[in-house]
Every structure is written in C-alpha cells, then in structure tokens.
C-alpha cells in the first residue's frame, strides 16, 4: 500500500504499538509556555524524575504577558508568578527559556519556525491547540494537554492513537484580495468546527503550492478550528529555503542527510485517504465570521444565513446570533465596529503586517476604532521597523505593541470590553474569548485593515481598487 505524507512521518515516530490501544509516539521537539506547563513540572517533582531531553525542549513566555512596558515587572501577581515558575522550571531542568525581553521571545508558534526548531518530517507538540501551525513545514504538529506535557517532559513520548487521514484539495488561482486566512475560514465554514474531528489533514493543490510559508502557517494553524488535530503541507523548495541556515536547523552534513529524508516527504500518487474533499479557488472571496465559532463564516458580500437554511442546530445558532446581537439575513458589511486586533499565531507574521499596511497607507485610523497591532515576535517587530512598515502605520494613526498572544485569548490586560465588536485576525470567536462579553469577527489582515480605517465592516476590495498593492 502506498503511503501518504502523514503515514510516512507518523509511522517513523512509533516507538511501540499497543494492541487495541494507542501508539507510543516519539516527539522530536517540544515547545513549552507558561500557562500549560507548571502543573506538568509539578508532576515531575512529585515523581522525582528529570526532563529526559532538555535539548529537545524550548520554552517561551507568550500567553500571559503584557504587550506594553515589557521592560517593567509584570503587574498582575498571578501572571508574574506563572512566568516566574516557567523561568525557574526551565533553569532547573536545563531548558532554554526565552522570556520577556529576550531577543527570541514571541508567540510559541511564530518563534518555532523563525529559529529552525520547526523542521519537515519532525513531530512537534506543545500544550496549545494551535501547534498545528508547524504542519506548514511537513511536520506532524499538534496540541496536547498538560498530562501529555508531563509525558513528553519525562519520556519524550505520548500515547496517541493514529488519527484518520483527510486530504483537502484546492486548485486554481485565488481571487483578488483573498488571503490564506480566507482560504482557511472558507474551508471551516464548509466543514463546520467538528467536520475534521478525528482526522489529520493534508492540504494539497495549486493554492497551497503557490502560498508563502507564512500563508501555509496560517492555514495549518486553523486546522484545529475544523476539529482536526493538525494539518500539514508537503515540504518543497520554498520550505527548505525557509529552514536553511536557521539556528536550530541541521547544518553541514546533517543538513544533507536531512534533505535526503525530506525529499521523500510527499504523498504517493496512488495513496488513499479516509476522506478527501476538493474545493475550487475561484469560489472563495474575502471571509468574515458573524457568530460564535469559527465555522460561522461567510463571504463578506453575503448576508448572515437564515437559521432555516441550516442542517439542524437551530437553537444553538439563534443563541449565537443573539450573543452577537445580529439578525438572520442581514448584511455583515457595514456593521459598525469598535476594535481591531492584528496579531496572534494565526496572523502575527511579517506578511500580515505588510498586508495591513498596504491598506492603511495614506489613510487614517477611524476615530471610533481602538486598534491593537501586536507582532508575533521580536523578529517580526524588527522586520516591521526595518521595512518601513512602522512609519506607514504611525502616519495612519496606529501604534505597535510588544509581542505576545494578547487579545487573541485576553489572558492579559488586552481585553475587548463587553458588548463591543472586534474585527480580529486571530483564530477564535467564541463567546467571551477576547474578554467577557466581547464580540469577535474573525477575518484576514486585509479585512481588519479595511475595518480599521472605515470604522465598520468593509470589503477590502473597495479600498484596494483605488490604489495598487
């Protein structure tokens, strides 16, 4: 039987198979952050066991950190305590720790690729569901719970049944102003938030081949939002070019050896999947969500669907629209908004800031909008400055904050107030996700920028036709 990309990587990491049970699954690289690790370290302490491979483990602070005045002590005592715990635990176990102020600090899924921790054919886990991001490199990467963080710290393995396989093909060329975020929101709107539960997804076809590494990361990042444990894209020249020379990537002979392996990482022509779906790139337009899960998305020129058009779940749908204070059938375009958030592991990379800047250039931030622009890492922040993007943003009335997860999950002070609407480039529009009572509309950096300068939900194409991008 011919293998899929997923089979090749999965099967080569099985230490041991348990009959009628999970595989003992080896993890090449483990990313650790402050929120989901302290109880795992406590577990090691209680069992009196060390971290087995600290050199395969990397720690950063991102979820629970302020995005202003990072040079000052963290004001919230609980947050400070959690950061302190990670720093101490890392030091005790010999794990590299890139805390606040460190040049490599940033969102865990942004800094992994930046530093060459993320590699094709590797297995990567983190106590965070958006670990799926790293699948952009042809890695098997997925989020785990804290018990599993403890397993990986202590044994570099988890117990995991092999998921089923799904391939999502999208061929053709993307329309004007359609970004990787729109592609992902489109897929999720078709599959719903549970449509890929139990599966690991491979994205294939022209659209993903033609996408930048940043774009592939955005797509793979959102795999979890359709229920998939992860998503991956076969590595190609673009991938190898991105990885080469990065600090933790193989070098010299080790690079050549790795390349020999990486070039075998593709799905064989006659391999089969448990499920296969195909969409047409031409059908996708800039997307926006109107409800309280990422599957409730629509093309920006469409109206909010009628409950009767749905296949069941009417009560839950109506509850969701009531939370948003939206009505069935009305236009999403033109809705007044209050906040714009550009950032997160979904859209906090340099390409996202370039896209945002391309629209706000020569315009002004709308007076009714509070905008939080949060780079995914210090490296992204540096690039924003080096490329002159910061000047464009400042001229348009925007400020840049310091790196972190920020308003994506609002663990820090970056909370959208109750009842307010935010157009957000992040990944979840759940009730209260961005602050108790907050209302989130997920969208691409282009849609976010269009909202930021007009103060309402605006089709970015209307602004882009007036200037070249």
């Amino acid at each position: 039987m011919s293998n899929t990309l997923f089979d090749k990587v999965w099967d080569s990491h099985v230490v041991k198979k348990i009959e009628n049970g999970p595989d003992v699954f080896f993890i090449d690289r483990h990313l650790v952050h402050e929120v989901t690790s302290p109880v795992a370290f406590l577990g090691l302490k209680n069992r009196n066991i060390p971290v087995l491979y600290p050199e395969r483990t990397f720690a950063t602070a991102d979820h629970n950190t302020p995005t202003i005045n990072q040079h000052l002590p963290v004001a919230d005592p609980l947050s400070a305590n959690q950061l302190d715990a990670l720093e101490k635990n890392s030091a005790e176990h010999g794990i590299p720790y890139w805390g606040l102020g460190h040049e490599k600090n940033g969102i865990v899924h942004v800094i992994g690729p930046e530093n060459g921790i993320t590699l094709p054919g590797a297995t990567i886990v983190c106590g965070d569901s958006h670990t799926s991001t790293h699948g952009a490199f042809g890695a098997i990467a997925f989020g785990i719970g804290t018990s599993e963080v403890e397993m990986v710290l202590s044994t570099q393995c988890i117990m995991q049944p092999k998921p089923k396989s799904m391939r999502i093909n999208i061929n053709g060329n993307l329309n004007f102003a359609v970004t990787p975020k729109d592609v992902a929101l489109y897929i999720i709107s078709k599959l719903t938030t549970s449509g890929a539960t139990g599966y690991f997804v491979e994205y294939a076809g022209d659209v993903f081949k033609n996408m930048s590494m940043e774009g592939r990361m955005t797509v793979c990042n959102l795999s979890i939002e359709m229920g998939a444990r992860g998503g991956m894209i076969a590595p190609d020249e673009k991938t190898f070019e991105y990885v080469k020379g990065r600090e933790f990537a193989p070098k010299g002979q080790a690079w050549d050896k790795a390349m020999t392996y990486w070039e075998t990482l593709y799905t064989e022509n006659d391999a089969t999947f448990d499920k296969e779906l195909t969409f047409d790139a031409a059908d996708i337009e800039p997307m926006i969500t109107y409800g309280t899960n990422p599957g409730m998305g629509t093309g920006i020129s469409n109206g909010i669907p009628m409950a009767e058009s749905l296949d069941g779940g009417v009560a839950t749908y109506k509850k969701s629209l009531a939370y948003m204070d939206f009505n069935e059938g009305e236009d999403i375009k033109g809705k007044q908004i209050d906040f714009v958030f550009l950032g997160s592991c979904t859209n906090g990379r340099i390409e996202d800031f370039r896209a945002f800047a391309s629209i706000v250039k020569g315009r002004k931030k709308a007076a009714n909008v509070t905008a939080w622009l949060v780079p995914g890492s210090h490296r992204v922040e540096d690039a924003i400055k080096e490329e002159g993007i910061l000047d464009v943003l400042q001229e348009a009335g925007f400020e840049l904050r310091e790196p972190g997860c920020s308003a994506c999950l609002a663990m820090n002070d970056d909370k959208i107030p109750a009842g307010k609407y935010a157009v957000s480039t992040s990944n979840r529009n759940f009730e209260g996700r961005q602050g108790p009572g907050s209302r989130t509309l997920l969208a691409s950096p282009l849609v976010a920028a269009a909202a930021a300068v007009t103060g309402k939900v605006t089709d970015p194409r209307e602004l882009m036709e007036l200037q070249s991008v």
Partner: protein
Amino acid sequence: MAYDKFNILKSSAVPLPIENVDTDQIIPARFLKATERKGFGDNLFRDWRYNSDNTPKEQFVLNNPIYSGKILVGGKNFGSGSSREHAAWAVYDYGFRCVVSSFFADIFRGNCLNIGVLPVQVSPEFLDKIFTAIEADPNTELEVNLPEETITILVTGEKEKFGINEYKKDNMTNGFDDIDYLLNVKEDIKTFAESRPF
C-alpha cells in the same frame, strides 16, 4: 497524577443541551493563571454561571438546585477549541466523573481520559432520550458501566454501547496513567531517540 478507579457509575445527571460547547466556555482563559491544579471547579462555566458582579445567573443549569449528579450531559461537539486541560480539571474538580455527548472534540476527550473523567459518546438519538428523561424527572439516574461499555437510562431500561480502547479502559478501571506506562518503556524510548536524524 493517579486518579480514582472508574468501574460502574450510577448517578443523576446535569443536562446542558447546547452544541459546540468550547473550552473557553468551560473555563475562560483568565482563570488559567494558577501554577497548581486547585480550585478550577469554582470557575467551571464561569461566564454562563455568574454575572459580571459574581452573582449567580439563576437560569443556568449549575445554579438550578433541582439538577445534580456526577454526570454532565452536553450537546454535540463538546469540548472544542483550546487544548487547556484546565477544562477537564474544572469538570473533575466540580464533581463530575463522566461527560456524555453525541460527539467530542479530540483533545478534550483525551484530556478527560488522562485525568479520570470518562467521556461517553452516544448516538444523537440516545442523547435525545437522555435529555427527555432528565426533563421528565431531574432525579432520573443513568448507569455508566465501563467494564461492559454501556450506558443505561435506569427508569426506562434503555441502554446503549459506547466505545473506548482496551488500553484506556484498563487504565481507567485500575486508576493507572500513561506516565506509569511510558516510564516502564523508557529504555526502548532512549534507543529509539538515538536513531532520530534530528
């Protein structure tokens, strides 16, 4: 962390007939700042359960004294979203030992199994029957029999099989966890690690 053994659980149940209950609802991110596994039950369904001034929302099921028990029954796609194990901890810490739904999100299901909360997936029809039975009598009891992999609505005798892999079943009935297993095969793991190219 080892947990209580799970064999047969007979209990009344708390109904939450909402679909796509995500882990941000089960426990909002602002309550994830602890460094120990303590007290998460207090914030289970925090924003559905309490107003912003911390007074209870009387219409929410956990604030309705007629419903109680060790089994939580949720709508389909229960536990979607974030990987936070804190969600499973909150469910456990509140006093639930079993969650019943017609569909679970992967990571939440795994987290539950790892801490001793049994996720029981039933058919949509059986889920409806459970909700109907609880609606008719809030004290109605369910019996979850892990060794036999069955769930029964005791008042009507209606019963359904559910699936769980043998390994996890064995773990739960004995109160073992995966780390116990992994530590026993550590030498195999070390040998395997030496063969990895990076």
